[in-house]
């Protein structure tokens, strides 16, 4: 079954002069990016170079110490709910409740993201199918392996459509077949005008993606508090 996604209006998601402070340390500074419909941005860099922090900043979980994120030129801070509605964030944890079945877990997140229940019901089945979880739909979350939990979390992306996907190491715990399925889903998402930002250490096939080395934006030495403060203003 092919998801019945309507092609969204062409849009751009951009960030200018972004900086991020964690515990008084500047993780990255002076970071710019622009992403258009159908585009993909791959974040690379060693551990601690700020890939997760940048994704959390993009998702709105973390306030940037400096800089602005914009959707079609409008700062996203103006309307955080609209930004949340067009974003899917996938972090390190899989948010799968042990006592709910796979279908219940997925259905809850889908309806919470987009409360049109009828549509969510069909989309959930389709999402389960795409990630090879149909036969596990009635299995409680506590019985799942790490890879199956990750796939349940990934299925969220399809269960409620959103143009912007922020994926923090989505391939963790996935087997080769699942990575292939994910690549197909990502390609389809981009073909229908969606955007993808992902961080990864593994090989993932994203044709035409922009690569960004996060350590290029690292600030060499530790800043003392006053300088960090200054940057925050």
């Amino acid at each position, binding site marked *: 079954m092919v998801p019945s996604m309507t092609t969204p209006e062409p849009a751009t998601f951009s960030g200018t002069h972004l900086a991020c402070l964690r515990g008084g340390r500047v993780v990255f500074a002076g970071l710019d990016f622009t992403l258009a419909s159908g585009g993909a941005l791959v974040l690379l860099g060693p551990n601690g170079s700020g890939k997760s922090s940048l994704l959390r900043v993009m998702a709105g*979980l973390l306030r940037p110490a400096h800089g602005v994120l914009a959707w079609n030129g409008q700062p996203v801070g103006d309307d955080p709910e609209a930004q949340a509605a067009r974003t899917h*964030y996938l972090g390190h944890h899989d948010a799968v409740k042990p006592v709910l079945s796979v279908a*219940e877990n997925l259905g809850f997140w889908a309806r*919470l993201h987009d*409360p049109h229940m009828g549509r969510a019901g069909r989309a959930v089945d389709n999402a389960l199918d795409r990630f090879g979880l149909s036969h596990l739909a009635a299995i409680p979350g506590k019985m799942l392996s790490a890879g199956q939990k990750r796939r349940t979390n990934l299925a969220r992306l399809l269960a409620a459509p959103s143009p912007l996907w922020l994926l923090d190491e989505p391939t963790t715990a996935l087997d080769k077949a699942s990575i292939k399925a994910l690549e197909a889903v990502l390609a389809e998402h981009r073909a229908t005008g969606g955007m993808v930002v992902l961080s990864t250490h593994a090989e993932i096939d994203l044709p035409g993606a922009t690569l960004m080395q996060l350590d290029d934006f690292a600030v060499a030495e530790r800043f003392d508090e006053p300088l960090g403060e200054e940057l925050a203003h």
Partner: protein
Amino acid sequence: MNRFLEVVRRDLRLALRQGSDSVMVVTFFVLTVVLFPFGIGPEVNVLERVSAGVLMVTALLASMLSLDRLFQADYEDGSLELLVLTPAPLGVVVAAKMLAHWLTTGLPLMVAAPVLAVLLHMQAEGFAILLAAMALGTPTLSLIGGIGAALVLGARRGGVLLSLLILPLYVPVLIFGVGAIDAAVQGMSAKPHLMILAGILVAALALAPWASSAALRQALE
């Protein structure tokens, strides 16, 4: 509104499947109250005199038992990040979780309270007021407790810290709850006490979800 109900439904379903929390809270309530006649003797006059206070204090402690799980489980498995990123004001999601907490702890306590009041020889005049005071008081406990639960998120030994933080804030509910029952038993009007309890509840309803949201955002940074 749909999202509000969705979160309530999910939390109730989780509570029913896991089962233990509600049962534990009510069992704690019953057992602790039952200890008092053993501790201070079976004299009718003494038990009757302390009944209102014992019931309210114990209910207050019992409702705190499950409070540290309010956000902790969601925080640990990553659900909280997704709840914060829900396309609805975070206050709505938080209020839904607080309502679910009340339905699984405050409400069962209310059901158990009259039975225990009989055990403590509370006079019949006090029963209706006891229920009214608990109906107005226990939601306040869930609301104020929710702020504490959000503030201690991620802290080591959060449960202990939570009690230290929240118990002083429960004092007004205790004073006016017991005041209402005592007034009714002595043949005076309980209305002023209940009105103040209702006032506290309204204030908590307006403030607690937003205060809690701010604390949650802080915890996730």
